[in-house]
Structure formats: C-alpha cells, structure tokens
C-alpha cells in the first residue's frame, strides 16, 4: 500500500473542502472495497478523507412514504433495523445476505454504491425500488446513477449523504450467487408500487439494468406466468468463467419468476 495523508473531518462542509483541496483525494467509508484496492495499488490516493465522524451520515429514518438510510450506515445495521424489516423486508434480507458478518459490520451503503460494482446487490434494489440518491450537492434517481462497471454519475468531490427508498407494495430479490464470493451471477429485484412495476437485474451486464418488457407484462398481471412468454436474449450479457451469456439469459427469466412468486403480499403497514 502506498502512503497517503489521512483526514478526519467532523462536518460535511469540512469533508468537501478537504476532498477539493487534495491533489488526488479519496473518500473512505467502511473501506471494504477501497482497502483491497489500496493494497493492490489499484487505488493510490494522495489523501484519504474518512467520513466516520460526520454524524449526520449515519442512521435510518422514515420520511413520509420512504425509508431514508444515511450513507455511512453499515450493512449489519440495515439488516437488523426494525424499521427496514417492517417496511421493506426484502431490503433487510438482501443486505443481511451480502458477503459475511464481519464484512457487513464495516461495509456501508454509500461506499457500496459509490464503488459501482456491476454484480453488487444494492444497485438492483435502488433501481427497482425507485430510490433517490442524495449527495452533498444534488439528488438523483437510481436510474441515472449507475453508469457502467465501477462507474457512477458522481462528480469529483461529490459526497453521497443518504439514499431514500420509497416503500413498495410488494418486492422481492432472488439471486443466483457465486458459491465462493456470494456476488450475483444473476440477481433480479422486482418491486411493485401502485401501478408502477420495476424489474432490475444485477451481475449480467456492465451495470444494473431494467427489463421494460417484463415490467409491462407484470403491470398487466403481477404473476410468474406473465413472464413465461418473455425470452431474454443473450446479446450483450456478460461472459466469464462462471456463466455464458446464454446461461445468464436463462437465469434472468428463472430468477425473475421466482422473485415475482415470492414477492410478499402487502408490506405497507400504515
């Protein structure tokens, strides 16, 4: 690991000033993606700005019909949150099945989505639930946030402060996980809110994506059978040692049907 200067800002404004002043600064949240990159010298920042003392970035609260999760909130705390379990149980379960307990104790939602891993579990949740990502300078829709493999719409020095998840009527996530890494070979998140149905897929392309054909079919009839006539084409899907594009196309269909089948009845308590 190369040397770097280390900073501990106490406010968001202080953190923003530090990241702008640094020659090649990097923010650090839990560090579960960044520290491995530092070790391999894939990342060689001149300065690390640690967000852990900025209290406003941590915590989970309900705001009208949405659950707002602070960027520095650890996966373990999202999985354990009674509020999340009661309102979006699928999200609590998804986060509780990420990686392993020691990783969940450090990893944060902000760090995870800023990393932009195309096989991660949070991105399909954000996209299917229609989440809003709130940063130090603006708010953006999840659809516009994930732009490619390990790439996001974040600008230099922009700091994620929270993610706001509208509470769905029904939602479910089913992933076909790599046995070793637990990352999704294919994961499908299905969410229904009023007449709006969204289907988001992770692990199958360079970034999370939606399948409009499935969304339209489910808007007419929210049942696994509605998806049966739809064939997913392998064109453009990932090919690697774990799965061919053809296999991933098949998995998308199967995972989507399972997700619809398991989408719990009604999640909206008051």
């Amino acid at each position, binding site marked *: 690991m190369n040397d*770097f200067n*280390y900073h501990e800002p106490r406010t968001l404004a202080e953190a923003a000033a530090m990241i702008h002043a640094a020659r090649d600064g990097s923010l650090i949240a839990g560090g579960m993606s960044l*520290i*491995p990159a530092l070790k391999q010298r894939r990342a060689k920042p001149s300065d690390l700005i640690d967000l852990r003392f900025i209290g406003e970035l941590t915590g989970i609260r309900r705001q009208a019909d949405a659950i707002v999760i602070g960027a520095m909130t650890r996966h373990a705390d999202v999985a354990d949150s009674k509020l999340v379990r009661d309102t979006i149980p699928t999200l609590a379960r998804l986060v509780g099945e990420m990686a*392993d*307990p*020691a*990783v969940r104790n*450090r990893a944060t939602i902000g760090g995870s989505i800023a990393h932009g891993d195309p096989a991660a579990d949070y991105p399909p949740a954000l996209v299917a639930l229609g989440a809003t990502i709130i940063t130090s300078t603006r708010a953006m829709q999840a659809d516009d946030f994930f732009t490619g493999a390990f790439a996001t719409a974040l600008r230099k020095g922009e700091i994620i402060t929270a993610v706001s998840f509208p509470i769905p009527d029904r939602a479910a996530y089913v992933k076909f996980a790599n046995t070793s890494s*637990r990352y999704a070979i294919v994961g499908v998140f299905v969410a229904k809110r009023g007449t709006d149905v969204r289907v988001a897929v992770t692990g199958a392309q360079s970034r999370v994506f939606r399948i409009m054909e499935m969304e339209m079919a489910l808007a007419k009839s929210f049942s696994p059978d509605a998806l049966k006539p739809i064939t997913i084409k392998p064109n453009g899907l990932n090919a690697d040692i774990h799965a061919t594009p053809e296999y991933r196309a098949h998995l998308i269909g199967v995972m989507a049907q399972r997700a619809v089948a398991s989408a719990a009845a009604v999640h909206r308590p008051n």
Partner: protein
Amino acid sequence: MARVTITVNGKPETTDIKPRTLLVEFLRDHLGLTGTHVGCDTTQCGCCIVLVDGRSVNSCTMLAVQANGASVTTIEGLAEGDKLHPMQAAFREHHALQCGFCTPGMVMSALELVQRNNSPSDGDIRYWLLGNMCRCTGYHNIIKAIKAGAEAMARAG
C-alpha cells in the same frame, strides 16, 4: 505519521503510526499480539477477525487509524490468567482445531454470534461462519464447540 490511541484488551495503547498501517499490523507488529493471524489478506478467510467495539471485523481490511478511539478485543484478551474463556475451553474440549491457524478468528467470530443469539442452532452457526474458513475442513467439531461454548457462556451468565 498519525497518533492513535486504541484500547486493546482493556489497555489503552498510544502509538505513532503511518496511516497506511492495517489494524492487524498494529496488533501484530506494534503490540506483538500475534494471536491474530493473517490468512488470505483479502477479506475472505476470517483468520484475522477481532472485535472492534464488540463487532467482528477483519483486521486485515481495516486501517488502524479507523480504529482510533475504539476498543479492540483479540484472542489474547479472552482468558483470565490460566483460565480459558468458555468458548476457548469448548474448542479444546470438542477438538475444534487441527492446525489451529483459523481458530482465533473462529473464536472471535463466535463471540459476536453468541452476543446476538445466545442459543444458536447448527444452521445459525454454519451461516454465521460464512466468512471463516478452515482449510483443514474441521467444521463439524467447530460447530459442536460453538454450540457448547454458547451453552457454557449462558450458564456462566
């Protein structure tokens, strides 16, 4: 250099370190606490797990500066003199170690599990140990030991 104060096994330790120092390097190289092992160095095997403010953490994937002000418990902090901690005693009783390399991480990880669930089932234990690898593949006795350790801890209150 950065000055950190980390309470390790109840004792505050203040040291000047390079910010790039990993928590596991701080424990092993600066404090000589070599009970915490480095297995994979890539956040996969769990041999380096310690408790940071009561939560299990891979100390190979945490900077020591990130633990500044925190309280860390390592395997060396469990026994009271010659008296093993009930979880350590259960590992010995149930022969839950072969080469022993993964054992410190297994024990520390088990302690957080028991803190969350004082009567874990076999399934709970196996699921919890997803991030702890034993390359001797001695899992069966490890599960038995953690179950017995949890019971002994409950009895001890």
